[in-house]
């Protein structure tokens, strides 16, 4: 824990001595440089530095209140809407500081989509839900919209179930379908990064499995960052895992290494269920 950046297996530019080199070199999508974050007087994140490679799944694990969701929300600046928050350090998206004054937060959120813990379909039809992002972006062409809706629903593995009732209310879908609809809705703005805040925690095992399969497919094209309480889920879907504790990044590395041979004792304790 002494140096968080050094405990980062192979994703940092210099290779680690332990021989756990990265399987293949990947381009960096998101880089966090000594990020600190405060809610009023309370510091929620302490000096977080890490790298998230493109077209991979990175899982954030840790006990409740450890800052993993807060960190996730700094990646598309969703924390901006909370009053009285402060931040220091940088978040770079493909090398560009997302908090720079010239960055348009609306454009940023189109590139960095987000799926929430509680599925939040708009009280509209399925079609209108998926078409919302492109529409507010100014797209009016019906044919193009229909095409985007279809391809997004297909990518979210929901098309077969809803293709004959696109104009029914999205509220009538089941919980798992609603969550996949939210994923489709996020995909419709054609993002590069998809942030998922415990996307399956409110779902039954079958729906969870579908979401996990979906995440596995989506990483071919998207960079996925997922916050999860479920360690089996992190082990199943992610390529890289970061362990947070009390606002500190304890360890980040290949998922296999984290789960079989963690470098830090706290990680070991958490994974083996000794606390948390």
């Amino acid at each position, binding site marked *: 824990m002494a140096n968080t950046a050094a405990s980062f297996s192979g994703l940092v530019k210099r290779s680690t001595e332990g021989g756990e080199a990265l399987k293949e070199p990947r381009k960096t999508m998101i880089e966090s440089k000594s990020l600190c974050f405060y809610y009023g007087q309370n510091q929620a994140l302490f000096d977080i530095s890490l790298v998230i490679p493109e077209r991979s799944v990175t899982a954030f694990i840790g006990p409740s209140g450890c800052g993993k969701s807060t960190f996730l929300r700094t990646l598309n600046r*969703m924390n901006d809407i909370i009053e009285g928050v402060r931040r220091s350090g940088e978040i770079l998206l493909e090398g560009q500081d997302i908090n720079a004054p010239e960055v348009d937060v609306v454009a940023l959120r189109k590139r960095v989509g987000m799926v929430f813990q509680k599925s939040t379909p708009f009280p509209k039809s399925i079609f209108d839900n998926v078409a919302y*992002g492109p529409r*507010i972006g100014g797209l009016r062409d019906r044919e193009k919209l229909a095409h985007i809706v279809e391809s997004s629903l297909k990518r979210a593995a929901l098309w077969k179930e809803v293709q004959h009732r696109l104009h029914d209310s999205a509220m009538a879908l089941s919980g798992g379908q609603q969550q996949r609809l939210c994923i489709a809705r*996020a995909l419709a703005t054609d993002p590069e990064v998809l942030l998922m805040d415990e996307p399956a925690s409110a779902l039954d095992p079958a729906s969870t499995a579908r979401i996990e399969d979906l995440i596995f497919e989506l990483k071919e094209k998207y960079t996925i960052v997922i916050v999860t309480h479920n360690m089996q889920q992190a082990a199943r879907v992610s390529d890289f895992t970061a362990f947070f504790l009390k606002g500190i990044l304890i360890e980040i590395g290949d998922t296999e290494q984290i789960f079989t041979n963690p470098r830090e004792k706290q990680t070991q304790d958490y994974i083996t269920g000794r606390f948390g």
Partner: protein
Amino acid sequence: MTDENPSPVPEASMPVVKRLGRESGKAESWLFAWTCRGAIWFSVAILGVLLISVTKNAVGWLDWQFLSSFDSSRFPAKAGMLSGILGTCWVIALTILFAVPIGVAAAIYLEEYATDNLLNRFIRLNLANLAGVPSIVYGILGLTVFVRMFGLFGPQGWIHEFTGWNLEGFFWSEHYGQYLIPLPFGRVVISGALTLSLLILPVIIIASQEALRAIPPSLRHASLALGATKWQTIRFQILPAAVPGIMTGVILAISRAIGETAPLVMLGAMSFVFFAPGNLDSLSAVAEHPEGLIKAPFDTFTVMPIQIFNWVRQPKEEFKYIAAAGIVVLLAILLLLNGLAILIRNRYSKHMRW
């Protein structure tokens, strides 16, 4: 962050309930339920007595002649409510036109944009106070601001005194022989509507704030996370979701405005009026003199509650029955307006579920 893994372990060791008889808690619960039931029946009974007695008095007097003719101070049989009905319609329509957009916009500002500083806290606190100000006070305000316009205009007005100009109004109309928009407004429909707007604004603002606050933050976050601007989020997600709550506030406010008498008496709405605002008493009148649509808001007027109040004061016995008929018409129009608002509310709340 809730852990969504409740593990309902069946409690095998739970003691079996032995006594099935009525316990002391039961009696209390029964008493409470019946007290509440009594309260609602008391209210309903009062309403029933009111409706029955008024309707009984109105029978025989409430006919087409009553609805379609102007008032008469001498012959109860000829007295009608047309000027009051049309006056109320104009006043309420204009009141809605002013108060609803301003009220909803103010609520959106306070809920979505205003930061939590001293000024905004002061405004929020005083909105509640404003809602409690007696209506007669608004009448005095309206008299100064809208009817007399601080004495700015007219031959003795300040503007004449300092510049020598003599502003009496805009748009001279040959048909009416006067300006369509007089300055100052005087004792006219629009003065009443603006005064009633001020009166109900706090109610609309507070109700709209409540409605906006009740929208789950998840809806807002979902929209923002998709790259919507704040305005798009408000326009496409928050406002449609808040419409049912806002409509409830509007219903309450309009119900209050429609029955208000005191501020309008203060403004100088007349009691016996023998014409409709702008002389528009039929559709053909509108077709013949379309400029009357501009004139009407700037014409003198009466409203239903004032007419009813005036009839009750008359010495002739028959006017009591006329007043009862007037009350029935007033209640009917109130119900009609509320029904319309409920219809709009239900149309919007169809999809809502969270």
